[in-house]
């Protein structure tokens, strides 16, 4: 089995604060709009209102109403999958006649952390079990499989903020290895008080709209959302006579083995992951049209990531789209991969919103205006807690 065999992408879907669909997100990004606001769905005891990027309820498809038995993360994943399947031209009859796997990255979506339940438990009470039942029904990969009646392999990747990228890389491997005919791959995560308080406790949340790679960046804004891509074997996609939207050309990953929450200062792990992904994809740096960076807006991430990009992919346009979406954690890598596919098709990337002043410690500038890009290959990359680095190389398809 060759690692260099490209895997066809025939559909993509996305839901996040930037838009209810992938085209909607792309339109708002090229329009330069964003709206980080204090959280609406929960309250906190912080005197400072750290802005977030919440998904409005009206963004969910009408056929997917709120369901107290299912987590918001799973609803987001299902919503993105519905769009991706429609984009791929796949109906349920076709889908259920094939071996279809589901690989979804998440963080919150796999955590048993219901605060109300736990408060009651701590008081010595006997809390109602419905939050636990919801947790047990809401494993993201299993939820997607159950919703669409799929019976292939399922895997929920919990590699913190690299989960979405890893999930796509793993699913591509499933396709190449013959584990399934179609793989639905992506990431999903919801906003919640636990992560909101957690990132503030680490002092890496910004009380202003996020400014990735800017000299005066103060940290991240959290977001929520999901994106899913449809990956298919050559046999299936050719049998369906469907145009390929993109290709997963390469995937690389590594661990810094350095610190639980901070990237290794010399960027060795990220460099290793980029090289592995490019080697697997058979790509050279001068073939890369642009890099969709992780770009969280935290001082450490952007310093390390900016330096590595400047070193091994010099003069290649790069951007962070987190200024439009917030940091959607386990969904981020998938959302950014979907944006990468859309930007390859459009032949341009939006301005890396929030950036104004170059940081001399980074020595690289993201694009500051809508920029035409040349070439048919782009990189989307993620860095994560645990020192995880994940990189995918995506190729332009036939649309």
């Amino acid at each position, binding site marked *: 089995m060759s690692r260099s065999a490209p895997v066809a992408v025939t559909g993509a879907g996305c839901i996040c604060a930037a838009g209810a669909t992938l085209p909607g997100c792309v339109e708002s990004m090229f329009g330069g709009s964003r709206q980080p606001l204090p959280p609406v769905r929960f309250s906190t005891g912080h005197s400072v209102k750290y802005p977030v990027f919440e998904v409005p309820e009206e963004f969910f498809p009408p056929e997917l109403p709120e369901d107290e038995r299912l987590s918001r993360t799973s609803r987001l994943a299902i919503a993105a999958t519905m769009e991706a399947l429609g984009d791929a031209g796949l109906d349920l009859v076709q889908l259920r006649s094939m071996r279809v796997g589901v690989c979804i990255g998440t963080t919150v979506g*796999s955590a048993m952390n219901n605060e109300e339940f736990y408060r009651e438990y701590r008081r010595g009470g006997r809390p109602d079990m419905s939050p*636990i039942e919801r947790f047990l029904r809401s494993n993201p990969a299993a939820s997607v499989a159950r919703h669409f009646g799929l019976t292939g392999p399922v895997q929920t990747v919990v590699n913190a903020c690299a989960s979405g990228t890893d999930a796509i890389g793993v699913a591509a491997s499933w396709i190449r290895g013959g584990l399934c005919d179609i793989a639905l791959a992506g990431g999903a995560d919801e906003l919640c008080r636990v992560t909101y308080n957690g990132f503030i406790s680490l002092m890496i949340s910004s009380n202003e709209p996020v400014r990735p790679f800017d000299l005066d960046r103060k940290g991240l804004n959290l977001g929520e959302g999901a994106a899913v891509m449809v990956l298919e074997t050559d046999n299936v996609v050719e049998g369906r006579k469907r145009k390929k939207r993109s290709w997963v050309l390469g995937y690389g990953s590594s661990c810094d083995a350095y610190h639980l929450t901070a990237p290794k200062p010399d960027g060795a792990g990220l460099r290793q992951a980029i090289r592995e992904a490019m080697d697997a994809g058979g790509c050279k740096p001068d073939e890369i049209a642009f890099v969709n960076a992780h770009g969280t807006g935290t001082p450490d991430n952007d310093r390390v990531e900016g330096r590595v990009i400047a070193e091994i992919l010099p003069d290649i346009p790069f951007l962070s789209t987190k200024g439009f979406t917030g940091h959607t954690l386990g969904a981020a890598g998938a959302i950014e991969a979907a944006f990468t596919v859309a930007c390859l098709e459009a032949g341009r990337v939006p301005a890396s919103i929030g950036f104004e002043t170059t940081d001399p410690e980074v020595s690289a500038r993201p694009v500051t205006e809508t920029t035409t890009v040349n070439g048919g290959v782009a990189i989307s990359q993620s860095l994560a807690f645990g020192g995880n680095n994940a990189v995918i190389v995506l190729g332009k398809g036939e649309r």
Partner: protein
Amino acid sequence: MRRVAVQGIGVVGGFGCGVDALARALTEGHVPVSRVASIPSDGTVSLPALLADTAPLEKFFSKRAIRRIDHFSRLSLLGACLALTDAGLFDSGLERMGVIVASGYGAMQTTFDFLDTVIDDGDICASPTHFSGSVHNAAAAHIAMQLKATGPNLTVSQFEMSFASAMLTARLWLQEGRVDRVLLGAVDEYCGVLGYCRERFFGTGPDEIMKPFDFTRHSAIVGEGAAFFVLSAVEEDTCYGTIIDAGLGNLSGDTPALPEETIFFLGADGHGRCGIHYKTIVPDGASVAAYAPLYGSLPTGQAFDLAIAALSVRDGRIPASPGGAMVAGQWKVAANEKPDGRALCCLKTDSSGGFGYITIKEAA
């Protein structure tokens, strides 16, 4: 798909620490059971439990090096070190090794420790240490940091299917040549909230004996622990056998095609709702075994079954199943018989009809 060799095994659980402790428990057929309160402030409702001790981790690292590592990650790290030691690879160059950790529930206790800081002292006093430790991949990160393993690193969480799902990816990494070895492990921990959930869902349990073959009643005893494996694409240097197949699916689709002449190591752990699905997959008259009474009921118990299957290959003998006789009588319980070249299939089902299997066989 290419065969994958098991080069080393590291286990820690209610039975003790290491493959020798597990082999001893298999010989004796029972392990001591603790009792834990389902609500810590109320000692009146207690549950039986098989808990693991991570003190042996200090044989590998100084107290100072691991002082901030929580129980969940300590379990994982201990399992990883034991597996590498068993494979003769501890302190070896691990640059071309991948790490994959599977967990059904993740670091639950640390998650609740984080909530304690919020509830006790307010949002502004949330603990950054507990928050970073509560992330599911913290255990894999600690393994990487302590062992300087800089290769691919993945954590997956799929409840009862976690280990089989992780195995799929481990085999592909080896097949693709991404890495030379994979340190693949499974871990789950006990915490008070889990005890409460079990009590609410299943009651306190009538006794301290698990009856894995009795699918008509609930007899699960909660367990915790870690089981790790060093996997390699090089088949010749193994005494534990080779993984010849692994798969995952749901019975609402197709049932798995398993080799004939298979001995089934059922992940039956006293959960009747999960257990009934074994009857759909395992043919009448098949030889079966079940060992959950030695490691307890935990989502990643299948990893312990694989460890026991690998020991069976090594020792040329299927250990007797603890926990009583067959109730349904449709299968025969394998006991003290030789594998004789037959495949050993570690099979797990869940309450929604999901199944995961890993098949191991003596190396060719």
